[in-house]
């Protein structure tokens, strides 16, 4: 999984009907000190994250391994909201 920060939301009324009711959040990947990395992903939010929160995003087929995203055209899902990181060893 990757660390990211929710920076916004995507609203799309015309979309694959399997995505109806899904919250689509824009997530920017972040470093371990939460500083932004380039790029972003649009992820289905399975845990109700708010804008600004640090989250974990699962990608690929594993993104469909939730009740909300199973058998749906989804390759990125927010599956945790991070409270804290403990970094012992700097890599």
């Amino acid at each position, binding site marked *: *999984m990757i660390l990211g920060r929710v920076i916004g939301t995507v609203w799309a009324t015309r979309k694959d009907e399997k995505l109806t009711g899904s919250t689509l959040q824009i997530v920017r990947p972040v470093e371990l000190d939460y500083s932004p990395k380039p790029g972003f992903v649009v992820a289905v939010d399975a*845990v109700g994250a708010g804008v600004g929160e640090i989250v974990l995003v699962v990608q*690929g087929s594993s993104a469909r*391994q939730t009740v909300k995203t199973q058998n749906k055209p989804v390759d990125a899902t927010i599956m*945790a909201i*991070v409270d804290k*990181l403990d970094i*012992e060893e700097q*890599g």
Partner: protein
Amino acid sequence: MHLGKVIGTIWATRKYPALEGAKLQIVQPVDKNLDDRGAPLVAVDTIGAGSGEIVMYITSREATIPYRVELVPIDASIIGIVDRVDVQG
């Protein structure tokens, strides 16, 4: 499978229900000489690796296999703690 070093832990109380009780470790990928290689990632640890240990981890859909629950949204799992790496050349 890949080699990595456990460098920390993620605490997340609000997470997908099936992940309740899962240990989320921060892993720094390493090369065959155990030097850092690429960006850190977060992996579920069903083995109980300690911080600083060299581990083996798997990614993508197969990462769900070691986990005790069938339907779980994870794409990286620690599957072993490395004792030693012998490389010729």
